[in-house]
């Protein structure tokens, strides 16, 4: 049985703090923009956000420049509204609307990422320095959730392979583990033991080196919203959405296969690979088809594609593997 711990923060405490945090956050975000230099352009939202009244309203949105790529050309994008209000991010609650509603106090800046394990030298890197590793790119990817719905999202980010090069893994590095933030103060879902916090995800090193794997820091031409995994999250479009660890604080190179949060939660239902595969059902529901978000009440399901349609880019990674066993 689950035991719910009540928040130790009373609502009366929160309200005045919101104004304060918001102002502080603004300052942090301004710095974030300054240090990231020409790549980041402050939007009009920021200027209006400086007024105290607006500062109390929704989290500010900031533009984020990135080079265009051919990924996802011709795909119909899921609306910004749907991408940012229909989220699975259990650190902020298990309902789809929770992350957008509950992530207002989360502070994605200042932020550092610890790079450790089988690397030449362990280091802690600021998000600003990570942004300098490689030029930001916009990539339109399909995202297929294990719950059989999908979206098309214009991410902004840098190839994971670039960060791996920067991390200088040793010969012992066979896997890469991503550990997410789990702060009960700003992430109310973490106070409930739905998953074994912190959230852990992982990839085989060759999967991680695949050019499709992306560390996203933005979407829709803007800095990544909190509910989508700010300040930095993993995007591996040929795998089910839950592989995309959000708010990454630690990247660890290991020689053993990481035990991910969902593997621990349901080993018979969620495997390490979690490749999108219409021929292998989740034990409880079909994976053969999916519902594209944004189609409305009367739009039929669409067929799910092997590796979410990215077989050409990633199929060779799994040559000879029994994908029924390695689900």
């Amino acid at each position, binding site marked *: *049985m*689950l035991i*719910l711990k009540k928040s130790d923060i009373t609502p009366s405490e929160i309200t005045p703090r919101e104004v304060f945090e918001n102002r502080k956050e603004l300052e942090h975000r301004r710095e974030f923009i300054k240090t990231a230099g020409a790549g980041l352009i402050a939007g009009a939202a920021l200027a209006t956000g400086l007024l105290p009244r607006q500062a109390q309203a929704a989290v500010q949105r900031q533009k984020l420049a990135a080079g265009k790529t051919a990924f996802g050309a011709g795909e119909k994008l899921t609306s910004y*509204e*749907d991408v940012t*209000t*229909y989220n699975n991010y*259990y650190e902020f609650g*298990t309902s*789809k*609307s929770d992350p957008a509603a509950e992530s207002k106090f989360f502070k994605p800046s200042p932020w550092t990422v610890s790079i450790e394990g089988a690397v030449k030298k362990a280091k802690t890197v600021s998000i600003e320095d990570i942004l300098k590793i490689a030029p930001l790119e916009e990539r339109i990817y399909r995202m297929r959730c294990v*719950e059989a*719905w999908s979206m098309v999202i214009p991410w902004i980010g840098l190839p994971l392979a670039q960060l791996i090069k920067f991390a200088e893994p040793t010969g012992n590095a066979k896997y890469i583990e991503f550990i997410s933030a789990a702060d009960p103060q700003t992430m109310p879902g973490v106070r*409930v033991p*739905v*998953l074994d916090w912190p959230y852990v995800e992982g990839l085989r090193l060759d999967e991680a080196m695949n050019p499709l794997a992306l560390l996203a820091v933005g979407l829709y031409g803007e800095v990544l919203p909190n509910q989508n995994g700010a300040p930095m999250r993993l995007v591996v479009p040929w795998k089910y959405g839950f592989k995309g660890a959000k708010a990454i604080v630690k990247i660890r190179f290991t020689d053993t296969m990481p035990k991910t949060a969902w593997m621990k*939660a*349901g080993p018979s239902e969620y495997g390490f690979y979690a490749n999108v595969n219409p021929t292998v*059902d989740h*034990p*409880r*529901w*079909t994976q*053969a*088809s999916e*519902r594209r*978000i*944004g189609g*409305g*009440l*009367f739009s*039929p*399901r669409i067929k799910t594609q092997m590796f979410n349609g990215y077989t050409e880019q990633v199929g060779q990674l799994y040559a000879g593997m029994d994908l029924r066993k390695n689900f």
Partner: protein
Amino acid sequence: MKIPSKQQIARIKAGLFIAALIPLARLVWLGVHDALTANPVEFVERSTGTWALAILLITLAMTPIKLLTGVAWQIQFRRMMGLFMFFYACLHFITYVWLDHWFAWVDIAKDIAKHPYVLVGFSAFILSIPLAVTSNKAMMQRLRERWKKLHQLVYVIAILGVVHFWWLVKKDIREPLIYAVILAVLLGIRIYFYYKKTRK
């Protein structure tokens, strides 16, 4: 507590009838205003299923109230509420075969056969059909003792309904747990009084 007059009963019944239609009215209103969330099919499916289960628990609460307090006039609403449960279960099933699967019968058959949570939900729905069909006075008189036996199926339906909800949830079982606890209490009260009666 004063027993309501015939006229009052009729008014309460009318009020309940309207109240039981509010969940449907809400869905229509949200649909018209394009406010059925980013995943409207899932929302309608969840909402109709949740209401079928909630109304079933309300229906099953009437006898325990009588057993505990001696108040019995609410039993007069039991059939209507049971039929509303069936009404929302029908909407739930229609949403599933139509909006969710667009009458792709082969896929639907596979889904039911292969996935336990779908199978138990489907079973609950099928089992509730004979109860709805025999809910009128004529059938009651025709079936007599067998009618009572037949309608005890409602306990099986309720358990299957809760299991259906429980197995559908990915990890956070708090919501189905609420339904499970309420059902356990409602059945527990019946069992307690049953044994009390038979031991005498």
